[in-house]
């Protein structure tokens, strides 16, 4: 482990961003600031391209890597031998990418994943695309066939830069050993400046094997990529007046609030002006859901009260959200009477999906502080706040537990929430279980909800739990619980990563909400396809508790309510990976639900309202 190397860069991760690229005078040029960032204060001496790659990673503060070995990446792995970077060998490259993604979500620093050329690289693609859709900082390093073979359809050759171009913030093909360290450093830095996103460096084997004595210079994002954090003053003033004049103001905090480390500022903002708050799914944890002002999250399976509020607000203060269709439902009925104040670091998100009456381009926390300065009186919204509270009572998030029906999945989520602390990290796959995990768990802290939102990647949960556990340990927080809620379908897609959890002795608890369906598809088939369960009904699933035992993990099977609490307690107390196979009601539906493209205010509360 690499505690000494870890935190040295913390005070200046984004220092001198756009001014001058560090490579202006070549990587070997004297650069005191750069040297200061290195663990030992001296530029690491290197003799090959691969060593330069690892030196760049160490200098950038990378502590952990997730990956899978293979021919073309072997020189980089060889250089990792003896490095301060902890490497976890994953079962599959997709798992490496998801683990790195989750590691980045939990730590706030880019996750790092490695794979070889060809299938190694293509297996990463799902995880990279997932990170891209969720704006997660991540660096992927892929091996490539030697430069002289590129383009000849060599063994394990794929045009990785071409394949990943649409799903990366930027990607690079490393051209030579002398510059490869700088390229890797730049890619790492670029992934986290401005709107974060995954970057990739493709590393031909001859480049990493070649001799070089060029140590990488100080890692810096390319000129012009680190945006101004401040919004224009006149725009801030105009937005402030709109907020002051609002009768029905509503905050909508997105994932950008968390990525921008703006949760504290956002909380203070909402509380100062007593503005009710709803979040997007990626924004879960930006505002405590147990706060009176919280309406939980809005969208397709959001709470009824959040969707009522977003439908009736006259001033939507949206921060760090890209107005995904799962949030907005039909655009025609989205916040149809609201003036929209849109704070975002990415100008391309302004008026992309929803027109911004008051566009504020800048960093979430910085702009909220600017607004704080500019707002002189809180909006007069007593009546509105009362309405929001009434909606909470009118549309409570409940579920029934009749004796003649099987165990309800929501009960399992609540049982875990009650048995764990607020700092517990929840990861999920994608589907019904994900919705229940987000609905029936009360999130209060940022970076505790780790899920696949934009891409909706089934199978995200288990590798994400591995990444989250390693992240918490690396942050010196080994006592935090990591709970993965997974579906049976999702679990079956990436359960091989359980082998990593066992091998590395990672304390994670995996709760499979097993309904032997691709449950969300089954729910849609019931609602929109007259109940024809085509290819959604597994009818049979392996015995996950036995599988867990075969992996060397703790395995428990739960069928009834009475078994839930003891199983939860045993699994959480177990020092190592545990899997609980909860056999839950296969017919349970996720509600409320806004049908795709429908009006948020017309969410269905029962299946027959769909």
């Amino acid at each position: 482990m690499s505690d000494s190397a870890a935190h040295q860069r913390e005070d200046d991760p984004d220092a001198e961003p756009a001014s001058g690229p560090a490579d202006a005078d070549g990587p070997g040029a004297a650069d005191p600031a750069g040297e200061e960032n290195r663990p030992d204060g001296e530029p690491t001496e290197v003799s090959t391209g691969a060593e330069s790659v690892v030196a760049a990673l160490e200098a950038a503060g990378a502590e952990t890597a997730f990956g899978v070995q293979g021919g073309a990446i072997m020189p980089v792995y060889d250089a990792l031998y003896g490095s301060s970077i902890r490497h976890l060998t994953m079962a599959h490259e997709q798992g490496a990418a998801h683990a790195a993604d989750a590691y980045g979500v939990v730590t706030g620093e880019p996750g790092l994943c490695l794979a070889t050329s060809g299938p190694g690289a293509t297996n990463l693609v799902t995880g990279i695309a997932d990170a891209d859709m969720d704006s997660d900082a991540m660096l992927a390093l892929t091996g490539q066939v030697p430069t002289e073979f590129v383009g000849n359809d060599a063994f394990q050759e794929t045009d990785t830069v071409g394949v990943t171009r649409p799903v990366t913030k930027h990607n690079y093909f490393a051209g030579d050993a002398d510059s490869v360290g700088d390229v890797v450093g730049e890619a790492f830095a670029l992934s986290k400046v401005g709107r974060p996103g995954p970057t990739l460096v493709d590393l031909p084997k001859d480049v990493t094997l070649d001799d070089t004595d060029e140590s990488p210079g100080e890692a810096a994002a390319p000129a012009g990529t680190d945006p101004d954090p401040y919004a224009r003053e006149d725009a801030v003033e105009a937005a402030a007046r709109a907020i002051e004049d609002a009768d029905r103001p509503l905050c909508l905090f997105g994932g950008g609030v968390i990525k921008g480390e703006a949760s504290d500022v956002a909380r203070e903002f909402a509380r100062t002006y007593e503005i009710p708050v709803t979040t997007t799914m990626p924004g879960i944890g930006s505002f405590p859901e147990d706060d009176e002002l919280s309406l939980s999250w809005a969208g397709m399976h959001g709470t009824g009260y959040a969707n009522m509020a977003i439908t009736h607000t006259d001033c939507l203060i949206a921060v760090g959200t890209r107005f995904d269709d799962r949030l907005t439902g039909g655009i025609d009925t989205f916040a149809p009477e609201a003036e929209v104040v849109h704070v975002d670091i990415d100008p391309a998100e302004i008026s992309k999906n929803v027109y911004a009456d008051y566009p504020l381009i800048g960093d979430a926390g910085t702009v909220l502080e600017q607004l704080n300065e500019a707002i002189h009186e809180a909006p007069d919204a007593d009546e509105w706040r009362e309405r929001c509270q009434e909606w909470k009572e009118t549309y409570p998030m409940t579920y029934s537990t009749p004796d003649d029906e099987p165990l309800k999945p929501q009960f399992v989520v609540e049982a875990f929430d009650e048995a764990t602390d607020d700092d517990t990290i929840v990861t999920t796959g994608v589907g019904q279980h994900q919705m229940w995990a987000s609905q029936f768990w009360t999130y209060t802290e940022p970076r505790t909800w780790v899920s696949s939102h934009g891409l909706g990647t089934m199978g995200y949960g288990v590798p994400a739990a591995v990444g989250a556990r390693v992240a918490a340990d690396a942050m010196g927080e080994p006592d935090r619980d990591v709970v993965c809620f997974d579906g049976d379908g999702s679990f079956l897609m990436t359960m091989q990563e359980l082998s990593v959890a066992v091998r590395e002795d990672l304390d994670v608890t995996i709760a499979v909400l097993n309904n032997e369906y691709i449950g969300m598809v089954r729910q849609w088939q019931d609602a929109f396809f007259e109940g024809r369960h085509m290819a959604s009904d597994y009818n049979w699933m392996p015995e996950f508790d036995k599988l867990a035992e075969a992996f060397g993990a703790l395995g428990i099977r739960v069928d009834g309510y009475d078994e839930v609490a003891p199983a939860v307690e045993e699994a959480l107390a177990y020092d190592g990976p545990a899997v609980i196979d909860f056999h839950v009601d296969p017919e349970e539906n996720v509600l409320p639900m806004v049908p795709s493209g429908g009006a948020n205010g017309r969410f269905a509360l029962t299946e027959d309202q769909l």
Partner: protein
Amino acid sequence: MSSEDASGEERASGEGRSGMPGPAPDERPQPEGRRNLEGHRIDPVVEAEHDSRRAVISALVEDEPGVLARVSGLVSRRQFNIESLTVGPTTVEGHSRITMVVEETDPGIDQIEKQMAKLKPVISVGEVSGSAVTSELVLLKVHGEEPDKVHAIAEMYDGEALDAGPETITVQLTGDESKIDDAIDAFDQFGIIEIARTGQTALARGNIPTAPGEKPGTAGEPTTPNTQ
């Protein structure tokens, strides 16, 4: 919290299987307002829906491998309607200019500019103002049975025959789009065998920078007349 508590908790009650309490959708108040497809509030009217129009987008880019693929991939992925795309070097080493003609609504044009600006190799990008100088080069191969008439029409459009044989004549034409379209109509009488068009390229008139924000010398050195 101990596990015994969890099992003993009061279980929330609902309205029966697969349901939550509360008024049905039709029983809830719904606002009157609406947004159009571009996310504008229609009530009060912010703006009517936009018609699409032609726009010339000019971008200065770093001439690195893959830059054209990044730009064209962006255009296709986001389903922008593009009519032509040209690329060529500038007088600054390592910088190229990309000129695109697109047919989009104003918000669509805005999106193209913003999305292109996010690409790392893009130095500056923007719409060339309407008074820009635009031109296109076309090569036309027509049947050669009536060479005199072909040459006459080529002359009418300031064209030039680059290759003339007993069976075919190849003509070069340059000009703005309407002139090219007229010329092609005129040559149609001979039977056009093949055609190759470069697509529009453009520069802003006068002192206006072509790609907004473009600094003097970013695309051309020297910026003062070379008198040697």
